[in-house]
């Protein structure tokens, strides 16, 4: 059962929307019809949870920018080598949140500030993929981020999620996915979501996804709404598919998306979120999900993980960042559960690289290689996947990766997004099963 906000439409708004649909029907491309169908129904009703229908499934990507220290996130506290390499910043075994006995979990635990993720782990809603990386790792933030975002070891080409959208919507009459199929919270949409044809929507706050001229003066409102009305009339009347009518249609689409997104984000979340930027982004995502936007992929990010100096151990700068990540994700998960939407949402974290095994002379860590990824949601195959990378068998002081990150993408694309991962990634990447059958 989906949470539906109480009667979200006034009669006037409904009638107005009805008119929009009528005049639009001749020239408006397919994706507006899809959007319009959702508009004509109360929020959310058009996207009620329909188990097994992949259109309902949502992926939320959480980017940890700067290179998260994987060894102090998923901690091999059972390995004496860990403490030898990190005398100042190692987290004591008695502080680590242990993941339990048996198999690979023995001697592995979460950073003490990741209590939020530990709860999810205990519920069976968290998968931890260990030692994720790629061959010939690049240690430049810029380059390695491109590599992760393009799923290409040269770091060139379109984004992997952008290719997914291109692929998914290529056969549609409109020639592509609607803009709000992917929403990134941030100033610019990440490369990952940029397709060859598909371009996502990006905004820091929903208020920015609109014409800023409205803020100049109250006297701008009425003439601007007349411009918009003109757009509606013109796009209804123009039979020819010229550049002008294309612009009019897009303007109309933008207005509808803007209204819906701002309305969604304006509502109060169902649970209390912590007061940090990542939590604010996730609260907005949860609201958009609750209001039934047809968005398939959301992208949020938190930065500050480039901990070259004084990163701390159980406490300190890095610990605080992890606390923000864990607490925000826990609140997000509770919110989705309260909505009844948790079964539709898969959340993954990634960072452009991990950090070196040994701490450096400044009580921090330098750019490294492999690191863990978290995959969240009630439908993940919970627990640890892959082995923790060896702290002894190193490559120039760096961990060797055990799982190619593209295997993780492939599993998400194949088993969650229900698309053909090979078409998106260019070749098969087998081996990782992260989603329950």
């Amino acid at each position, binding site marked *: 059962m989906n949470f539906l906000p109480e009667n979200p439409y006034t009669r006037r708004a409904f009638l107005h929307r009805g008119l929009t649909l009528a005049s639009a029907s001749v020239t408006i491309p397919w994706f507006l019809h899809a959007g319009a169908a959702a508009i004509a129904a109360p929020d959310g009703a058009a996207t009620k949870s329909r188990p097994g229908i992949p259109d309902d499934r949502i992926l939320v990507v959480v980017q940890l920018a700067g290179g998260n220290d994987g060894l102090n996130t998923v901690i091999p506290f059972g390995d004496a080598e860990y403490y030898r390499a990190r005398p100042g910043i190692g987290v004591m075994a008695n502080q680590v949140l242990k993941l339990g006995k048996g198999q690979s979990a023995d001697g592995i635990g979460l950073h003490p500030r990741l209590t939020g993720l530990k709860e999810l782990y205990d519920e069976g809603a968290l998968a931890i993929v260990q030692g994720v990386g790629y061959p010939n790792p690049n*240690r*430049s933030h*810029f380059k390695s981020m*491109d590599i992760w975002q393009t799923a290409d070891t040269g*770091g*060139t*080409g*379109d984004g992997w999620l952008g290719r997914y959208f291109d692929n998914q919507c290529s056969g549609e009459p409109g020639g592509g996915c*609607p*803009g*709000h199929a992917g929403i990134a919270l941030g*100033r*610019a*949409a990440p490369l990952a979501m940029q397709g*060859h*044809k598909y*371009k*996502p*929507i*990006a*905004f*820091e706050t929903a*208020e*920015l*996804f*609109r*014409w*800023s*001229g409205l*803020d*100049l*003066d109250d*006297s*701008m409102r009425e*003439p*601007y709404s*007349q*411009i918009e009305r*003109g*757009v509606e*009339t013109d796009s209804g009347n123009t039979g020819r598919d*010229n*550049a*002008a009518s*294309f*612009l*009019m249609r*897009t*303007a109309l*689409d*933008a207005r509808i*998306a*803007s209204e819906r997104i701002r309305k969604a984000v304006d509502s109060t979340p169902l649970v209390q979120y912590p007061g940090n930027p990542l939590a604010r982004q996730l609260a907005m995502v949860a609201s958009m999900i609750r209001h039934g936007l047809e968005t398939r992929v959301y992208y949020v990010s938190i930065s500050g993980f480039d901990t070259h100096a004084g990163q701390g151990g159980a406490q300190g700068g890095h610990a605080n960042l992890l606390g923000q990540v864990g607490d925000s994700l826990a609140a997000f998960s509770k919110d989705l559960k309260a909505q009844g939407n948790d079964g539709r949402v898969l959340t993954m974290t990634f960072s452009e690289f991990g950090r070196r095994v*040994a701490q*450096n002379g400044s009580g921090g860590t*330098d*750019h490294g290689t492999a690191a863990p990824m978290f995959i969240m949601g009630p439908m993940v195959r919970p627990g640890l996947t892959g082995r923790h990378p060896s702290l002894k068998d190193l490559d*120039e*002081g760096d961990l060797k990766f055990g799982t190619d990150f593209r295997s993780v993408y492939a599993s998400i694309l194949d088993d969650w997004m229900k698309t053909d991962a090979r078409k998106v990634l260019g070749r098969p990447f087998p081996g990782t099963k992260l989603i329950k059958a």
Partner: protein
Amino acid sequence: MADQDRAGPTYSLRPIDRKDFGLDHARHLLWRAGFGGTPSQVRLIADWGPQKAVDHLLDFQGPAEETDETRAFDPSIMQPPSAEQRAVIQNARRKQNEDELARIRLERQRREQSDRGQIAHVRRWWLKRMVETARPLQEKLTLFWHGHFATSYRTIENSWHMFRQNQLFREHAAGNFGDLLRAIIRDPAMIAYLDNNDSRKEKPNENLARELMELFSLGVGNYSEDDIKEGARALTGYSFQYNDFKFYKDRHDTNNKHLLGASGNFDGDDFVRLILARPACSKFIATKLYRFFVSELPPKGTPEFRAVEGVIAGLAAELTGAKYEIKPVLRKLLQSDHFYDSSVRLARIKSPTELVIGAVRSLNTPVRDLGVVADAMDLMGQSLFFPPSVKGWDGERSWINTSTLFVRQNMLTYLVTGKTPTGYDPLAADDEYDPMPLIEGMTRDEAGSPTSPRDVARYLLRYVLGETAPTPRLNIITDFLTSSGAIDAQSLRGALALITAMPEYQLC
């Protein structure tokens, strides 16, 4: 649409009659062959007539900019390590000296960071140059070649090479296409981008040879896979050292090659010569110029498509006749009846560069913060020096989606008022835009009274949107100006913010 030609569009390359050349035509020329113009510039061009106007633009009669800024660019940031430095690195690797390796890595990261700073500077410099230039067509052509020979900093990570390539495009802007091809196979940025730097006779790299034909000169279907292999052999040894082209004789394949129907011991220049001799080449370049300056091609199989093919054949013949000089073909095109046809005018979507530079040049707004402008252009999908692929930008409708449309409208609001989506440009108060000069020429123009809201609205719409605005649009701006109480800088800024938020403002 008011002066829609009842006889249908013209596809003639005959020069337009001077008496048919009015304000709308002058405005059109300024937008397509440059970045728009103020009302007084539009009037001046209209007075000059098509011949003088095109000559002025095409012969780059305005003074060239010489700025000290380019002299401040540092050519050595990405200088490759010397033999001694390489020895140090190898030594550290061998001894697994982690501290030393970390130091070397950090040093390299610092240089990369500094170089990214410089490419941002080069970007701002080019934007400023486009805003200020007295030779708009030269910059427009530089932009054209940047899209044609698309090379991305993201891949080559060398700001000096990108800058030098940009200067190369400027130097050859309306020059000889053959010269440009010969220069591009010697251009360090291009060589690095298409991996020719390590191409040697034992193992030729085909990337440059392929794109040279497919994307730069002939187009798919006008060469064979064997031509690529043989062409790659002709290009072996074409590399660069530090900042300059270097031909490595020992890497060059001196054996006989069978290339584009000829056979001989060909090198890169022979390859270019053989390409230029192909009729497909002149047609390919004529098509590219047509799509940039006139319009996208109509759907294949339509009568319009066949008509446009005729236009392109005429341009291609001009190119061949002039031995690939670009100037004569552009002169013919920019003076032609077809170029000024009402179906051509206001039918293209402005690229982000045209939108931003055009707004500053035609409205005379302050430039404000070039960093903000460059960032906004990224969001609009055109990051200069970072084209998405070797194919350049797709252009036209691919520029526009729900996100970019707001970014475009908000960018115009920013230029006109200093308002950013999150607040105000801190310098907005000092850098207030005075739009009053825009309407100074009104009475002389017999366009009406500069104190009548309706006359002012009609005048602004004519120059800012182009052509004659439909009555509902005219009413919106008239009512806004009327309710503002006075025609002053503030009400004009409001009116301009509204006009530039109209979807049709995206057209040129």
